[in-house]
């Protein structure tokens, strides 16, 4: 009991990188070398990490913001942002659930999120912290027993520099594109996971159980390394709506799978999409890339994207090892004025590599949705295969659904198959459901869930149930 109490006390002091002293610390506005040094300094980073950041910043200065994407957004003034601010103190946060937007509470109720979790999501000081902490610690103990490292990346930089040094930036180099480079220069925190050789991670790793995770800020950095023959399933985000005062989110996620390793990465993203007229809302410009480095390795991305004003991301797989496998399962739902430009890249470099892409897009209201993907089979990737299927569902004639696949086949012994369809929910189907007593909204929820089934099946069990409800909720008000 005493031990537990100690732990809690430790936690209260923001053990992981933050202390009460820096609560009011904020880097000066703008982006320059000094700010980067400031961030690095506050995180007590070693010199090599600072060099990494500065190198990225030097590159960033030369880059131009891309503008080829479909959803346009007002220009972001990168000098007008705070790149570091310590987490909000409990004082600024809502005291209890009554302070929250009733709309939000309603959604929680529909999703069936327990009261304690609702509070936690909104950063309300929960009396019963005790419970969740104890769960977290037992999990930690079990992981440590297996030799799995799972901690904030800032902690990993301190405690496991050899691993971080070796793999950070190995998939998304500091010289990558605009937003990824920005992230490399200024990222504040994120997750780090290392699964040692031959270990099958006994549970789904999730930021949920990583204490202090909600304060990773707008430039999150995740690095997951699966050593030879290991397996890990990682969950990111949650189905509950997330609000954040930062509009721009430019996270980087790097996955490395060595020989015979498998990483399964699932995301459910439900950030604030802006109001009915499309004002506000989060820009989610994330770079996610996985490297199947060893032979027989496998990386699988599953995503359910329902939030954000603009989602712009392409979780990708570089299939470098022979016989490696890449998978991408995606559901993207846009409603009101939301915009999404998402898809994947499958880059086949090794022999006998296989990839599969299943993408389901649903647009309603005034929204716009684009699937953009690349399948590139290089001349050395003999006997490789790709199968792509992207289906779009439209509701109403004010929204758009677009498909822009790039298909490159440079190997005569490899096959690529791609198909895409666009359609709407047929009147017959609706009629049938309604005739059996479902309301129009329920009927649509049911049909859409059927449409998405292939992807929902890929999600871990408990996630899938919530995601299914979320799919229905996201489309509320789109009928009529």
């Amino acid at each position, binding site marked *: 009991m005493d031990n537990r109490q100690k732990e809690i006390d430790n936690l209260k002091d923001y053990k992981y990188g933050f202390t009460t002293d820096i609560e009011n610390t904020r880097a000066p506005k703008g982006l320059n070398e000094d700010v980067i040094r400031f961030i690095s300094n506050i995180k007590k980073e070693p010199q090599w990490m600072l060099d990494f950041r500065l190198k990225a910043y030097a590159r960033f200065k030369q880059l131009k913001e891309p503008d080829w994407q479909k959803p346009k957004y007002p220009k972001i003034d990168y000098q007008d942002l705070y790149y570091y601010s310590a987490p909000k103190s409990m004082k600024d946060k809502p005291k209890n659930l009554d302070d929250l937007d009733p709309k939000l509470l309603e959604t929680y109720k529909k999703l069936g999120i327990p009261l304690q979790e609702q509070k936690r999501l909104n950063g309300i000081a929960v009396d019963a912290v005790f419970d969740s902490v104890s769960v977290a610690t037992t999990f930690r103990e079990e992981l440590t027993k297996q030799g799995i490292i799972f901690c904030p990346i800032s902690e990993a930089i301190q405690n496991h520099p050899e691993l971080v040094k070796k793999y950070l930036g190995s998939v998304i180099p500091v010289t990558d594109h605009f937003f990824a480079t920005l992230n490399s220069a200024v990222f504040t925190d994120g997750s780090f996971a290392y699964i040692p050789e031959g270990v099958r991670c006994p549970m789904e790793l999730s930021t949920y159980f990583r204490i202090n995770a909600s304060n990773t800020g707008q430039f999150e950095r995740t690095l997951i390394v699966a050593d030879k023959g290991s397996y890990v399933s990682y969950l990111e985000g949650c189905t509950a709506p997330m609000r954040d005062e930062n509009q721009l989110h430019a996270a980087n996620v790097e996955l490395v799978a060595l020989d015979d390793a498998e990483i399964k990465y699932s995301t459910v993203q439900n950030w604030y999409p802006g109001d009915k007229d499309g004002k506000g809302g989060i820009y989610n410009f994330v770079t996610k890339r996985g490297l199947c480095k060893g032979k027989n390795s496998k990386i699988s991305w599953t995503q359910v994207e329902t939030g954000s004003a603009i989602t712009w991301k392409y979780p990708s797989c570089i299939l470098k090892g022979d016989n490696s496998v890449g998978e991408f399962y995606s559901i993207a739902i846009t409603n009101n004025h939301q915009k999404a430009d998402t898809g994947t890249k499958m880059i086949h470099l090794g022999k006998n590599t296989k990839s599969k892409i299943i993408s389901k897009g649903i647009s309603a209201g005034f929204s716009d949705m684009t699937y953009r993907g690349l399948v590139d089979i290089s001349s050395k990737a003999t006997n490789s295969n790709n199968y792509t299927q992207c289906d779009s569902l439209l509701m109403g*004639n004010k929204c758009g*659904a677009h498909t822009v696949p790039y298909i490159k086949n440079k190997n005569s012994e490899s*096959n690529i*198959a*791609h198909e895409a*369809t666009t359609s709407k929910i047929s009147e017959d189907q609706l009629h049938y459901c309604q005739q059996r007593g479902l309301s129009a909204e329920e009927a649509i929820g049911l049909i859409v869930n059927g449409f998405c089934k292939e992807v929902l099946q890929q999600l871990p069990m408990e996630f899938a149930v919530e995601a299914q409800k979320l799919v229905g909720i996201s489309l509320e008000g789109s009928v009529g």
Partner: protein
Amino acid sequence: MKEQLQKDFDNTIRNLTLSQKDIEIKKFYLDNFINKGFPNRKEEDWKFSDINQIIKKNIGELSFYTDYTSTNKVDTSAYVDGLEHNKIVFINGRIEKIDFDYEKKNQIEIIDQSETINKFNNNSSLSDLNSAFTNKSFKIAVKEGYQLTKPLIIYHTTNSKIWSKNINLRLNFELYENSSLRLIDLFRDTSEKNFLNIFYNFDLKENSILKNYKVDKFENKNIKYSFNNIDQDRNSISETFILSSGSNFCKNEINCNLNGEYSSAFVNGIFSINNNKHHEIRTIINHLTENTKSYQLIKSVLEDSSRAVYQGKIFVNSKAQKTDGYQLSKAILLNKDSEFNAKPELEIYADDVKCSHGSASGSLNEDSIFYLMSRGLNYQQSRELLINGFLLDVVEKITDSEVKNLIKNMIGIKE
């Protein structure tokens, strides 16, 4: 290149009788082209085929002026045998003959439109180049209710008199209500290292039917770009067939605007290329109103280190409910150095539509070969049989039986 352009432009203008205003217009396009230059891979539409590099590598310095004052002798032996047809003959870019012998004279109007008014909904710099340098341009109008009895064959002939030249052609076609036209573009080149830049504009009125067959079959070392703009009114039908095979580089672009209800567009194409050839087809079908239909089928057979690109786009605006759009591309890569790139694109703003696209590329099916060989064919025969069957699918889409047979003979496909 700028001085060369300027000099060649002055030479071109000198041989034309143009009003001051027309010269100004041409100058405007020239300046546009000088500013933009040839398209390169930085432009999305040219991502897979950097024509700037291709011209540099294959031709080097281009000259833009060709002396059109003297006539060229028309070689009648080059005419297509066994099919009665009307003719337009271009030799080295100069119109030598327009001949509608089989048609009623008052039903077809040929209008000299050498003053250039850029009607092209195309902001590529190649359309600027074309507008600045076209020598003569004609409009061919088919009168209301008239259906041409014989097909029209346009012979695009070049011979060894020209070298490193850029040749610009432009033709306008107008098909009035209930009229129909079958048009075959036949490329016959004995020249090397020239760049042909061809722009066609078709205006299809109600109930009219256009069938355009582009046949680039004969081996040559030229670089070609061809752009077809097709505007379609109610109930009109356009059918385009492309055989992309002979040239070193060839890019065919089809931009089709389905403006009237119940109009439909069909684009079918074959890539059959070898060596270092690099061919592209790019289509844009704009469904702009209700109840329109489009269908595209592109098949490729790629040998040696050849490269084929298909970029197809179906656009459906929010008014165009009940659209039916279909697109399929298939490729067989026969050599480890061959390459197939595709970008089948859907851009859809209406919900009551049926749109789909499919794309597949890969090697010949070994099982099928095994099956055929087990029945007594040798490897080579089995391979040919499979490839012919694969391509025949597209040829069979040709709705005109005369032309279908002509093209079958040309490719050597037997039924």
